[in-house]
């Protein structure tokens, strides 16, 4: 099993997303994450899909994606170095005494405070999945009230 990050450029039309999601589900794969939004060209959407599976299976998925009429281009980032990021919002239990600790911990990771209340603090953080994972394990002891991860967005590194 390996994890792939795939970028899919699709026509920005209704139905396109469920067509793509359906392609994965009909073959029994679970999508680890999926993000989608318009590109600089509003008629095109760009999706970043993270999926785990064995190599030959994923190769099939890429071919099948290409076969969909709405799909303009598929990039499978197996071979190329990528830049990828996720964003999280995490609301932690925080009292007067722990608030500062949390904020300084977050700032080590480059996170910022998104909101604050007498009993909680909400941190916003962008980073690689690895960074995000590390941060979560660091703050877990404070008590996670709520957490949301965006899923990955990715693009290839510029060629040198």
């Amino acid at each position: 099993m390996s994890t792939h990050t795939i970028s899919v450029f699709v026509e920005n039309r209704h139905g396109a997303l469920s067509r793509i999601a359906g392609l994965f589900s009909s073959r029994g794969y679970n999508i680890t994450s999926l993000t989608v939004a318009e590109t600089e060209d509003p008629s095109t959407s760009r999706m970043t899909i993270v999926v785990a599976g064995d190599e030959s299976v994923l190769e099939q998925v890429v071919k099948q994606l290409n076969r969909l009429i709405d799909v303009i281009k598929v990039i499978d980032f197996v071979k190329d170095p990528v830049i990828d990021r996720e964003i999280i919002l995490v609301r932690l239990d925080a009292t007067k005494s722990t608030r500062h600790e949390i904020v300084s911990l977050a700032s080590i990771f480059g996170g910022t405070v998104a909101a604050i209340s007498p009993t909680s603090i909400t941190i916003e953080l962008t980073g690689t999945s690895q960074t995000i994972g590390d941060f979560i394990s660091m703050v877990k002891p404070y008590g996670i009230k709520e957490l949301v991860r965006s899923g990955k967005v990715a693009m290839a590194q510029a060629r040198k």
Partner: protein
Amino acid sequence: MKKTGAQIVVDALIREKIDVVFGYPGGVVLPLFDALYDAEKVKVILTRHEQAAAHAADGYARATGKVGVCIATSGPGATNLVTGIATAYLDSVPVVAITGQVATPILGTDAFQEADVVGITRPITKHNFLVKDVAELPGMIKQAFHIASTGRPGPVLIDVPKDVSVGMVDNYEYPSKVDMRSYRPNTVGHIRQIRKAADAMADAKKPLIYAGGGIIISGAHRELLELAEKTNIPVTTTLMGLGGFPGNHKLFVGMPGMHGSKAANFALQQTDLIVSVGARFDDRVTGHVASFAPNAKIIHMDIDPAAISKIISVDIPVVGDAKNVLAQLNKEVRPRRANGWNKTVAGWKGKKLFDYQPSKTEIKPQAVVEAVYRATKGKAIITTEVGQNQMWASHYYVFTKPRTLLTSGGLGTMGYGMPAAMGAALAIKDRPVIDIAGDGSIQMNIQELATISLNRIPVKVVILNNSYLGMVRQWQEMFFNRRYSSSCLRDGVLCDECKGPGKCKHVYIPDFIALAKAYDIEAFRATKPSEVDAVLKKGLAVKGPALMEFMVSKEENVFPMVPAGKPIDQIVEGQ
């Protein structure tokens, strides 16, 4: 020009040169049927069930190579199309299905006769559209026909809400061409790959051509024949490819797979090079995949990149349309002389590809198919149902021309044959169109006898009545210890004790002859071998539709057979 959505659909049909559509009306498609009422150039055939409309469009498409069109109302009408659409999808048949839908403002409210048909058919169409604005309609219809008929063909569904079909476009124009950035199928083979293929063919000691339905779809039968004759390579074609290569040619070794010929299966297992064109290594062909063609290098030519290395890993992939790719390949290949391998293959083939035990007392279903072949001099278009009838039709009718066998290969849809024959017979007038049917399958769309009768569509139905869901019974005989659970078509409350198929005294229901007569269709029955030819003669001489029923031996099995999941040279020859 000012036109309503419904008028636009009709105009588009005319411009796409569609002369017949198959449909069934209902609430939200009434505007469309109303527009069709005035369309002299488009004949509407009212089927008796939407499933049959889809199969008829499919049969029309397979017989002609043109796009077949079917129309149904929203909700139940559209869901009734589903089996027909899936059938066309699995066999890559160009069909455009037009469905009515509830008006856009009430979409998603569980409105009367609302079903999310675009959602339901997403995995069984090549593409589908929900038209949300009448202004989009001309472009979408144009795209639908384009997508259905190009690349690897397939069904496309257009869902037209009521407000769209009554909506008005002020300056309607049907687009003259399509350009879709996301859909540009590659039809010409890469020359480097073609040369690699030619080299591999020159190096091979035991090559085998394995051709599929792609040959027929792309019209590559002449190129295939040229390739085979130039190189003297034996040819096997899949069920879908039958007729793509002359079935009476000395290089032909029959179809491969579960009910394939010994020659084809042995050749596949021993070949050192499979030259595959327009075939997809279906599991009914490969049997146990890991032991399939263990010594073979594989060239795979296919229009669909996703078909390549899907099941079997391929050494030389070539993406392109079969006709183009084979023409390219024919320029590159070197002539090859028949060698010891050809002799070995011919030895496996023997005198006949398929054989059975004849009988003087019982009508053998295989003998009926042979008699149909003789009576039609091999000139008929044969459609089939699914089950033993389908396999016997493929074994004992010799197909020499493309588009002469119309059969549900991928989905295996019982009930396909008669409506498909309707579609074919409306398009092809110079050949008899015959549905070789099982007594079970024929009942799945038996209501179409009305359509056939009223429109005097010259479909000939040949029922091989074995009183059983024969193929199911065969599996139960072979793998379930003869426990004929729910496979006897005579079974009912009167059966307190079953004395076995030979001794059953119950009448068969329905009486197909009486039933045909109820539909005002001429019908004939043969119960003895001596009656077979006479019944066929009478039936085939009828100008319009006719039904012929043959009371065949009840426990006949289809052989050879490779049990599911076994290597394809582990053949059970039987009897």
